[in-house]
């Protein structure tokens, strides 16, 4: 066991998987000698060499398309896109190729890649360094999408993603990168993609969230009156996602608040809300509430905390849902 940050646990998982499987290569901008702009790949080029930790030219379409080729040829590429805002050029390769090769070739050619992408706001970053596009990728059949919120989950989910036979988008909430440490086992372990985690049990209301919002939810829960018992679920995997865990919980509590940083409309909260409506209709005591980013462009950082679903907004939604 070691007490690790999210950055360190991801680094550890990468190193262990690379040690175990020499078909794994990392590629991206500044991931080599610089160790990535967040230092997630720190030391890996030194340890595994330039052939396995590759600083690429500055081209996201290149990084992704090249990775698709590597994967089809039997390698296990782990490309990094430096920030979620720069997925744009990679989108075509990811969505139109990585996600579709298995289907198009009836399984003859597959793309087992894991693309790592820092995600989300709250760190005073420049423009296009703070978005939350998970729903966009969840909407594309053929891609798996995960977003761990803790060092422990990050290691287990990353190992699962790397070993997965299909492309996985692995979002790393940058607001959590160094915000806290937790015990992470030295040994390798996996966390099944598609399984949520019940962070705390409760009986009155279910909060479903993922990524950095988990910590805003915990803060809100701390502020709530003692007599409101909340069940907090960290979804962890966006696609496939653990509908069962949500349904089971909401059947028990009868109320649900979904919290995410991405804009409200067509955010992944909409899918969750719909699942609840379909499966928990007669159990509901109140309409499902979504606390999300607004339907606006993610603002520059002076206004980012007004945009993001911070604890006070979550707390109000929980109380209002209780009082419906």
């Amino acid at each position, binding site marked *: 066991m070691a007490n690790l940050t999210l950055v360190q646990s991801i680094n550890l998982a990468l190193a262990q998987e690379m040690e175990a499987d020499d078909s794994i290569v990392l590629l991206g901008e500044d991931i080599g000698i610089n*160790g990535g702009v967040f230092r997630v790949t720190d030391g890996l080029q030194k340890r595994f060499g330039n052939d396995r930790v590759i600083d690429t030219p500055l081209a996201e379409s290149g990084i992704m398309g090249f990775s698709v080729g590597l994967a089809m040829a039997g390698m296990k590429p782990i490309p990094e896109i430096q920030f979620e805002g720069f997925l744009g050029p990679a989108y075509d390769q990811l969505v139109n190729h990585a996600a579709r090769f298995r289907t198009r070739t009836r399984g003859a050619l597959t793309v087992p890649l894991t693309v790592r992408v820092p995600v989300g706001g709250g760190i005073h970053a420049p423009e296009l360094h703070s978005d939350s596009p998970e729903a966009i990728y969840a909407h594309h059949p053929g891609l798996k999408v995960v977003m761990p919120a803790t060092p422990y989950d990050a290691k287990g989910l990353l190992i699962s993603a790397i070993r997965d036979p299909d492309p996985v988008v692995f979002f790393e909430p940058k607001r959590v990168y160094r915000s806290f440490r937790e015990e992470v086992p030295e040994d390798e372990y996996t966390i099944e993609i598609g399984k949520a985690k019940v962070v705390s049990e409760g009986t009155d209301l279910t909060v479903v969230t993922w990524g950095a919002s988990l910590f805003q939810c915990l803060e809100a829960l701390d502020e709530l009156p003692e007599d409101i018992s909340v069940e907090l679920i960290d979804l962890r995997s966006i696609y496939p996602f653990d509908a069962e865990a949500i349904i089971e919980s909401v059947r028990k509590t009868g109320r649900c608040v979904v919290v995410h940083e991405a804009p409200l409309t067509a955010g992944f909260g909409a899918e969750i809300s719909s699942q609840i409506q379909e499966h928990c209709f007669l159990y509901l005591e109140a309409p499902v509430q979504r606390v999300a980013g607004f339907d606006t462009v993610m603002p520059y950082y002076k206004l980012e905390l007004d945009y993001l679903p911070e604890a006070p907004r979550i707390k109000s939604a929980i109380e209002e849902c209780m009082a419906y």
Partner: protein
Amino acid sequence: MPRRTVYEAKVEFVQILDEDGGFDEKLGKDLISDEQVVALYEHMVTCRELDEIAFKLQRSGRMGTFPQNKGQEAAAIGTAHALIKGTDWLVPCYRENAALFMHGLPMHYILLHWMGDERGNEIPPGVNITPLCIPIGTHMLHAAGIAYASKLRNEGRVVATFFGDGATSEGDFHEAMNFASVFQAPIVFLCQNNQWAISVPRESQTASETFAQKAIAYGMPGTQVDGNDLFGVYKVVKEAVDRARDGGGPSLIEAVTYRLGDHTTADDARRYRDQAELDAWLAKDPLIRLRKYLETNDLWDDQMQTELDEKAKVIVREVVKTAEGIESPATEDLFNYTFANLPDGIITQRDTLRTASIGQNPAQIGLRTQRQNA
């Protein structure tokens, strides 16, 4: 069938003022008047002061991430000087602040931008500049479009767009070059080859010997220039601008320069580059070189320098005061510029600052209890 050469090309390197202050009279005579050189030098010094102060603002927590421009001022200023303010367009990246100021961008706007305030992008009317561009390489296509609009409407405007060595690896760069050339748009592509794209050195970015030669594949002239030489940059850009204005289409210019600072304040270049390399380039600083030129030509002395340094400090102090004196933006700003006509959903979000349906309409509170009691 014999083998034959179907295409041959040459790429020129231009330098007028070398790093020791040597001046090529043949190329540089009467190129820029003494008075103008002095004014451009003064601007260069003021921009350097702003750059150093911006760095300190970030370090003391008064500003977010900032990409220092230092070392690249000659490329920016030489280019801006070759364009007509108010007529031509500048389509920047983020390492050519000095050019933007010359074309009318208030200095404090740059600080506002990096202070996380969108008002730093609210370009004043009549200033033909697009905002700093964060997604690398994407803006050159806009520049090509703006240039083509000028051609279509016969407006006689020329566009200059700045980008780095790293940006040439993005697909958009190649598309912009191709579009500009196919449509013979009046545009100058100004590549600031500062040798690094964050931690990736120029040799790892491209296997081409020069960036300038990439022009050849697109059917436009490409020239390499000493980017720390104000005269050289001005000369090659002016030629390209004149050609573009006369209907001669696009050009690519590679300004060979160096990023004297870290990539941004979030970066630590000591992780990946040698001090010796930096030291060698420090000696080629465009500021030192231009001052040498001025002194050699009896246009400058220590007294003037002292006065200028003082003046620059005063100007920059005022700029910082202005930027920091501006009240925080209203939360409403977040919504108000999303569309010309806001959809109802956004209006509700703005007016309630809520996304959850009960929070947006608190009249719903107690509904269920009432119904149960009824």
